[in-house]
């Protein structure tokens, strides 16, 4: 009988801190190769369509930026939450409410056409996402309610609310009874960065700016220190005079605002109107992005690009080798598993210990 034994390292390993995401990616590729073979596909060919083919052309790089932008924006906000030990898993709902709140102007006041519309929409989107995230924060602070469950429940409520809007009072009368609002007017459209080359819009720039800003806050400002201290030891935080309830609100409001910004950017940039399927699960995939980026905003930029690549690669592989696009989510789920498993290497040495068969393993 072999069993695994963990030996605590005196200090966390800087080497594995840097290496663990790459080990996890490698293991995911191995597991993915096995999965593709079981599905009857040639793994090398599939990997080519998954990870190389989407990077070969300019327009496709733009599509990558479009998919990566919401993932990075949301995950950067989640990093603040998770570092401060606030488990916001309802970013999907905050994304949707941000999209809805940001759409108020073009949908309800289509005559109001001016350059100021777009900035107002972005602000309203952020406010909407933040306000929606404030609900679980308030319930946690005031009533001691578990934020994991409340934030997740609010995702379903947000989805249903959006569904009601775009099938009901906000539906485009000229839309042939398809759910969705009328197309936004030109002042409500998030412009493309470089229209000659591809569709990527300013959402990607927002994502990069947010990542750098949050990175600066976390690593250079007192507030960032507060985030980490309260996350690792609430007691130590109290002695330092930091307020845990205020941190709950801070973390949820930041991540809600960023998820809301992602939502309105997606609607006014990539889609052009509000509809019932505006998210392909960005809010949940962003959780994977946050952990793959080791909760570091700069790492999250890289992780967001990788996960965006799996979306594009999934599409490419479904067209070229006939692999179901459902495989993408399984692949992403495996990645998170390996990431979490490999993070153990940072704090522990792993030893395989042989035990005598006669004596049961007393762990």
């Amino acid at each position, binding site marked *: 009988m072999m069993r695994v034994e*963990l030996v605590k390292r005196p200090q966390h390993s800087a080497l594995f801190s840097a290496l663990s995401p790459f080990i996890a990616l490698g293991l995911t590729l191995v597991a993915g190769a096995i999965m593709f073979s079981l599905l009857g596909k040639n793994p090398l060919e599939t990997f080519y369509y998954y990870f190389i083919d989407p990077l070969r052309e300019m327009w496709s790089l733009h599509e990558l930026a479009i998919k990566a932008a919401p993932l990075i924006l949301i995950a950067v906000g989640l990093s603040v939450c998770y570092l401060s030990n606030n488990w916001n898993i309802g970013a999907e709902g905050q994304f949707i409410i941000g999209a809805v709140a940001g759409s108020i102007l073009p949908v309800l006041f289509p005559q109001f056409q001016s350059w100021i519309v777009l900035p107002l929409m972005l602000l309203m989107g952020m406010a909407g996402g933040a306000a929606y995230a404030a609900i679980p924060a308030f319930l946690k602070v005031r009533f*001691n309610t*578990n934020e994991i469950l409340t934030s997740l429940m609010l995702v379903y409520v947000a989805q249903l609310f959006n569904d009601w809007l775009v099938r009901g009072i906000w539906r485009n009368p000229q839309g042939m009874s398809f759910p969705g609002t009328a197309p936004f007017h030109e002042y409500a459209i998030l412009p493309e960065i470089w229209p000659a080359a591809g569709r990527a819009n300013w959402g990607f720039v927002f994502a990069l700016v947010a990542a750098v800003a949050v990175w600066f806050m976390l690593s250079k400002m007192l507030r960032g220190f507060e985030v980490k201290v309260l996350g690792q030891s609430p007691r130590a935080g109290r002695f330092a005079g930091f307020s845990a309830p205020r941190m709950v609100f801070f973390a949820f409001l930041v991540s809600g605002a960023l998820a809301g910004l992602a939502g309105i950017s997606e609607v006014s940039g990539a889609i052009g109107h509000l509809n019932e399927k505006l998210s392909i699960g960005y809010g949940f995939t962003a*959780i994977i992005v946050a952990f793959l980026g080791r909760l570091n905003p700069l790492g999250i930029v890289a992780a967001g690009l990788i996960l965006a690549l799996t979306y594009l690669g999934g599409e490419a592989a479904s067209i070229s080798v006939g692999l179901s696009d459902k495989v993408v*989510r399984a692949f*992403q789920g495996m990645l998170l598993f390996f990431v979490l498993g490999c993070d153990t290497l940072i704090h522990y040495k792993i030893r395989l210990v042989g035990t005598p068969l006669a004596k049961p393993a007393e762990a």
Partner: protein
Amino acid sequence: MGMFEAILLTIATAATPLLIAGVGELVVERSGVLNLGVEGMMIMGAVTGFGAALATGSPWLGFLAALVVGALFSLLFAVLTLSLATNQVATGLALTLLGLGFSGMLGERFVGMPGIKLGNLDIPYLSDLPVVGKLVFGQDPIFYLSVILTGGVAWFLFRTRAGLTLRSVGDNHGSAHALGINVIGIRYLAVMFGGACAGVAGAYLSLVYTPQWVENMTAGRGWIALALVVFASWRPWRVLAGAYLFGAVSIGQLHAQALGIGVPSQLLSSLPYLATIAVLVLISRNRRLTMINTPASLGRPFVPDR
């Protein structure tokens, strides 16, 4: 059969999967482990249950397959959180995302196929009794098993030595370890029990509640089961009460939709989720009550030192 009776019967079918998954998770949490992967284990149970029943023609074998797959799937979580001491919240989320992904992939071939429904009990004479006949003697077999399971778990946890050991592991893993109790081993068993229950609960959805396969068909029920455990303050019979309360809410809103009472269907559909939030707030605002009942080591990783 009257309208009222029919509603009561459907409440039981809506409550049973919540009850089974909730009682399973209760045992896991009593051992000090927080497994947020219930939704993922349920959906894996739903897809394997459906597939196995379709392949063999027997819904019972479907349930058996779901039980085994649920337990094996939870083993992934156990290896990471117990042997590699990873963060339980994050790993549970990972299990849910993995389950949703895998089930979508595995279930693609089942979409739109007619399923096999597990029939209801039909005992001569007894099932034909007025009023109570169908309610007491004419439900599906899993309904009865879910009530037996609840009683069995209550008895095990609070009336047996093994149950006491499990609770001691959940309340203070350090002391339990010092007493020579195999903390990790017990937690492995508890997690796999929870996985098996979640698998069966998922199969109930695809073999009894709506005998078909739809992607994401658990629709948050795994999360509601998690909330039920908090609501029940970690006591089995209160999980049953909570499950029936939620069954009543979700069936009530379905009937309200069918009657077309002029309220948007989406608002009615969101009622179970809003009710979950409301109930959680009501329960957890009483800090003392939660403090007393929450297993003290819940969610904390345990690494034995020599």
